[in-house]
């Protein structure tokens, strides 16, 4: 009797334990995506949300040149910001993991604080910093790099600088676990066996860090693709990426089916970017 009931009791207890998380995550985590898919094929309701029925109109409109241009701007931006963030974040993380523990904690608190700071506040800070009155341009003038102070926004450079600022802490925190647990005995062993420092690095360290570095790169790209505020505040309107267009389609255009379809297009591009990066990581191995 008890033998039979033990699994049942376990199930019951688990079911009870997980009922609330299940309700929330299925109801509010998974279901909204199915709804998004449904709405993306619904006809638009000009004075409301959407109408019943099915149409592929929103998907048909995805081929417009403006949209494709914005998509390619998004992808280009993602690759540039991802590359810079990993290029700076990797050595930074490396140096942080080699610091004394106290100093490590100070850097981590600092990085977490900037990571969590709202992208609105960061974009605003960059706007102030790049303005004509205060900005960096005055320093450039003092250094003789520029003739007269001028506003450095809107520009693509400003957007990239702000996005790197936003993404860099995430890159460091993604690489931190791997680099702080890296086993140096293996490097020592390779050196003892006569490998040069460079060879020890490429043959021992690189295989261990390649996967996580690629993950950090992908996370940086996904974060970049999703940002709405920095390109809107700091960028030129003709280079507004998909995220900004999706936002304005939903808010100013009141066209939720179209915004939903555009979201799926952006999601598809993001997944392709991630898969491409994974493929590249694998290809270099062989």
């Amino acid at each position, binding site marked *: 009797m008890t033998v039979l009931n033990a699994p049942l009791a*376990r199930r019951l207890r*688990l079911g009870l*334990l997980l009922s*609330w*998380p299940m309700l*929330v*995550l299925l109801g509010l*985590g998974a279901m*909204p*995506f199915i*709804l*998004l898919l449904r*709405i993306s094929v619904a006809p638009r309701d000009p004075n409301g*949300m959407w109408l019943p029925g099915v149409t592929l109109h929103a998907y048909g409109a995805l081929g417009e040149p403006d949209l494709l241009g914005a998509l390619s701007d998004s992808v280009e931006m993602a690759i540039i910001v991802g590359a810079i963030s990993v290029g*700076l974040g990797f050595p*930074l993380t490396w*140096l942080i*993991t080699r610091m004394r523990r106290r100093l*490590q*904690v100070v850097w*981590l608190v*600092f*990085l*977490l*604080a*900037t990571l*969590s700071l*709202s*992208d*609105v*506040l960061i974009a*605003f*800070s*960059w706007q*102030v*910093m790049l*303005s004509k*009155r*205060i900005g960096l341009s005055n320093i450039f003038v003092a250094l003789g790099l520029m003739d007269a102070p001028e506003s450095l926004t809107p520009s693509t450079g400003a957007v990239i600088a702000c996005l790197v*600022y936003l993404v860099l802490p995430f890159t460091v925190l993604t690489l*931190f*676990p791997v680099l*702080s647990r890296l086993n140096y005995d293996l490097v020592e062993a390779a050196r003892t066996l006569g490998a040069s420092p460079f060879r020890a690095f490429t043959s021992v360290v690189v295989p261990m860090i390649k996967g996580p570095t690629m993950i950090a790169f992908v*996370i940086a790209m*996904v*974060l970049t*693709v*999703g*940002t*709405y*505020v920095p390109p809107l*505040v700091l960028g030129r309107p003709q280079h507004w990426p998909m995220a900004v267009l*999706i*936002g304005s389609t939903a808010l100013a255009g009141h066209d*939720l089916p179209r915004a*939903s379809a555009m*979201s799926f297009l*952006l*999601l598809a591009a*993001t997944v392709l970017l991630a898969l491409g990066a994974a493929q590249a990581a694998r290809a270099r191995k062989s």
Partner: protein
Amino acid sequence: MKAAGKFLFLAMLGLFLAAPLVVVTGVSFNGTQRMSFPPEKASLIWYDAFFGDPAWMSALSLSLIVASLAALASVSVAFPIAYAIWKYQSRTALFLESIARVSFLLPSIVLSIVYLVFWSWLGHVGRIEDTVLSHAVVFVALPLATIGLGFRSVDLSLVEAARTMGAREGDVLRTIVRPIVMPYVVSGLVFVFILSLNEYIIAYMVAGFEVETLPIKVFNNLRMGFQPTMCVGAVLFMLLGVFAFSVVALIGDLPKLLGGIARQREGA
């Protein structure tokens, strides 16, 4: 030479990360309406203006309420999942964990459209609970990670020893598991609280007109031109972040929490 290079690299990146924060803090202390740095006639008038303005105060208190509730809701979802994974190796719990991870990793603009559509479909628009629940779900991956780490750092031989000495399941949970896991629960709360406090686009899409949190108010003001009070808001949130994560570092082991190596015991 090598050490100098390292130092220079760290100093440059530190400067890059600190510069916008320093400039905004400086501007917030201006004594005039103009935006200048270093501040002209340093004063606290904009702090007075900020704390004396009911609109800013309501945005601030709304932000704090949303963030606190989102943190509690998020942990209430994460804790049972982490416990079920640790205690029962439940596959359902692992599946729920993967949903949580995916929601965290999606581009935020897509998530904001998802929730805009979802709450409109429910016919439940512009309420504070929309913002709270959306944030709770989007950020649930964080407390899941920290609390999971907490359960995994419970030494099973301690549990075994307690059982041998006759402790019941409840005793084990109360005397051994709870004190170890508690700091990780608090860290999870702090992470969601701070991220929700600062989150803009989802909060804006879901209920931006009715539930105007501080980032939304800053953004709305940004469109109307520069105001020094906005800098005060930014400084406040910066300080909150530094304070919150310093607390996490004090009550727990921050490098370990972020996946690094655990602190060495004193004298070990």
